[in-house]
């Protein structure tokens, strides 16, 4: 096929995909239902693979479809479906506008050692130790972090600007939303990747995808035997070299009439560029498929061995002995364990499966999910953790559990979530307003959805909180509502392994329906 529609088709699909992903991540009004998000994420390679190995069901087999697609058509995933790849294409376009030179690529040799070593390291580290390296390098997760930490705040600021203007005309369809930043250190990883990928894509096209991205490398290996690929028509080619200059993967060696399929992302730009219509996209020529195998494979094996010895030492996680929460009545809050989000089952489970794409963090309507710094150890950085000083977990909400693409947060029906105990409330009487100020407060008990925090008689007319940990679900509303500073008088200590809370019991009141006014 030499049709210019191939490229237009690619641009159309990728634009749609990109817009969908963008909307999902910046949806600050939480309009998009979880189901749609799941459909969109079904074909994302790493998340679907992780879900598959967790669930072992074909229902999570989006990555198998991608592999089959790659065997048939080459790395179309990278151009059509990968949000990070599409984002890089947009950047390259901008780069070309800034300086024409940036969009003149030309053929370059592949970074064979680097890319296969990184792929091997990712595979080995993931299989042996955990998802740490995958968290860093999964293109979908990287994209998710860009959106959550950089794009969403910008969108909210724009919304606030518009809401301000509309509000002055008595229109309240948009509401002002406070932009809540995260801790500064959290921005370190996404910011450095943004700089790296930004510069590479601005000036070198898809170099990131062909040098660092493990998904790109893996699909590149598969596409070595793909059926459809870019082909040269030697008789028509005049060796003008425009295809090589226009190739953002730098993979066309026009002097050899050769396209490196491991790096070609099937963007179809070359087909449109070629003035002689010498390039086409079609079935592979079966005759020419014997030589050229060994070299890269050898390098791959060598690289993997090398990295097996070295890299894991850098990414070792902290070991997580389950600490037993103790109720210590000191003035300082004595948190023994972080609180991991509902559906996580246990901190260990969450750490094992989460690639820190931040989708749950951006989807949480209350903003209680925060990217972890060192709460889970250095390896669990950026994974979601509950921060009850920022907000609390809404009793009637299962948003984060519905959308997790890697199944790190298992889906919970509302009734089950309402009984999932994330942690236990601990009351510090010496901090409590009722004791220190001798005035009424009750903010914690007022906020408690299960009445696990209730008031008992204290001095005089006063009442003071008490906690029933059997029905506490650790939602953190009490901790959030407690007005004392700097330490709260009530706090939730996380359960390293989530437990099941008892259902709150309730009896009919003795007060009867009145027949006369009592006044």
């Amino acid at each position, binding site marked *: 096929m030499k049709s210019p529609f191939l490229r237009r088709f690619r641009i159309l699909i990728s634009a749609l995909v990109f817009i969908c992903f963008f909307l999902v991540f910046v949806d600050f009004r939480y309009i998009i239902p979880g189901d749609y998000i799941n459909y969109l994420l079904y074909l994302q390679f790493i998340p679907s693979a992780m879900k598959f190995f967790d669930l072992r069901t074909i229902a999570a087999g989006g990555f198998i479809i991608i592999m089959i697609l790659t065997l048939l058509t080459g790395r179309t995933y990278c151009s059509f479906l990968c949000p990070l790849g599409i984002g890089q294409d947009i950047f390259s376009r901008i780069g070309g506008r800034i300086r024409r030179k940036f969009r003149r690529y030309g053929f370059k040799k592949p970074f064979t050692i680097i890319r296969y070593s990184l792929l091997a390291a990712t595979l080995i580290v993931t299989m042996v130790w955990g998802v740490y390296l995958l968290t860093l390098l999964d293109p979908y997760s990287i994209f998710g972090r860009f959106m959550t930490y950089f794009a969403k705040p910008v969108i909210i600021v724009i919304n606030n600007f518009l809401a301000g203007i509309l509000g*002055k005309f008595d229109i309240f369809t948009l509401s002002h939303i406070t932009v809540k930043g995260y801790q500064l250190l959290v921005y370190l990883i996404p910011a450095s990747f943004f700089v790296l990928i930004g510069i590479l894509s601005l000036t070198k096209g898809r170099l990131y995808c062909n040098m660092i991205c493990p998904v790109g490398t893996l699909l590149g290996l598969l596409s070595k035997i793909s059926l459809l690929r870019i082909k040269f028509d030697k008789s028509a080619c005049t060796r003008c070299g425009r295809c090589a200059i226009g190739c953002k993967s730098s993979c066309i060696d026009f002097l050899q009439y050769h396209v490196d399929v491991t790096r070609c992302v099937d963007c179809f730009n070359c087909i449109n560029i070629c003035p002689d219509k010498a390039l086409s996209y079609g079935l592979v020529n079966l005759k020419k498929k014997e030589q050229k195998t060994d070299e890269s494979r050898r390098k791959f094996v060598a690289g993997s061995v090398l990295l097996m010895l070295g890299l894991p030492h850098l990414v070792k996680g902290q070991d997580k002995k389950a600490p037993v929460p103790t109720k210590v009545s000191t003035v300082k809050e004595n948190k023994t364990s972080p609180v991991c989000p509902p559906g996580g089952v246990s901190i260990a489970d969450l750490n094992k499966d989460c690639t820190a794409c931040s989708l749950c963090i951006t989807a949480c309507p209350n903003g209680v999910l925060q990217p972890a710094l060192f709460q889970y150890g250095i390896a669990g950085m950026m994974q979601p953790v509950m921060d009850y000083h920022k907000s609390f977990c809404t009793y*009637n909400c299962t948003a984060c559990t519905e959308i997790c693409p890697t199944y790190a947060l298992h889906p919970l029906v509302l009734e089950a979530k309402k009984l999932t105990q994330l942690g236990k409330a601990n009351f510090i009487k010496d901090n409590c307003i009722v004791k220190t100020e001798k005035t009424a407060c009750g903010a914690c008990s007022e*906020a408690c959805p299960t009445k696990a925090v209730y008031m008992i008689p204290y001095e005089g007319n006063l009442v003071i909180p008490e906690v029933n940990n059997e029905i506490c679900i650790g939602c953190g509303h009490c901790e959030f509502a407690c007005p004392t500073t700097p330490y709260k008088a009530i706090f939730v200590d996380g359960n390293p392994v989530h437990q099941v809370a008892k259902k709150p019991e309730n009896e009919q009141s003795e007060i009867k329906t*009145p027949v006369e006014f009592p006044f």
Partner: protein
Amino acid sequence: MLIYYLHSLENNKKKLYFSALFSILFDKRVTITMKRRDFLKKSAGAGLAAGAAISVGGYEKLWASSPSNVKYDMVAVMGGNPDAMFDLGIQELGGMGTFIQKGQKVLVKPNIGWDVIPELAANTNPLLLKRVIYHCFRAGAKEVYVFDHTCDNWVNCYKNSGLEKTARSAGAKVVPANSENYYQQVDIPGGVKLKSAKVHELLLETDVFINVPILKDHNSTRMTCCLKNMMGVVWDRGFWHSNNLNQCIADYALFEKKPVLNIIDCYNVMVKNGPQGVSKEDLVQMKSQIITTDWVAGDAAAAKMLGVEIEKIEYIPMAHKMGLGNMNLDSLNIKRIKM
């Protein structure tokens, strides 16, 4: 640049400047801006007057502010649906037209504090709210606004309480109250603990304010009703909780903008596990409604409904002593109706 610009917007002066800039294009805004400014000046003046009045002791005039042609201090209705009871009650008080002039902007403040379905009665009854808004428009209100500073996630509260939909269908504007940007600092002259507060700008911008609380048990103040419902128009509730909650509730009632009418929803009353409730077992169906111009009296009557001694609810005697209302129900002219 953009971020800097928006930051500067948070500064109030710039906000005024900004709105003035817009008003050049659209004439409407000038009046609103000026009104707010004037109001702030006025309220400061009125505050001084109020303070002086209290110190002299002639405080009766302050709360006896209801229109002179109102026959009763309080109307209590029992035995009907919330909307039917309101129709009857407001008729006894001379209709909504007694309290609202044509063309006025009205704020109706229900309790939408919790992310709870209407059947569990943690929020004001939607039927009642709808009827109140209807009567406001019939009396010639130009615009009716509804908001509450919620305790749970505000979007969920507005939605799951059914109140956003009901209020919209009745023609009211449902306004967000989830961001500090919507709030303005005001002085509370004479306040013992609460000397100033950040209140929602619509409380200041509207002409008339109608309070529509629901009667509920409350874990620490024993009861939430008229006065405590005002915690939903201020931003920093934490300050109240940590600075003598009861005193702050009473102090707030000193603020100049008082409700012209308090409509207390006692249809389903949460008698325990308040103010949020756990299940239907917390409710008692009382099928009642109290409509009054005096919110301290309203709270006193509500306490009786709940079966709690008035003195046990500390902020009621406090407010009474501060001259903000009359808790002695015997001395009031009350109309009792059974349907």
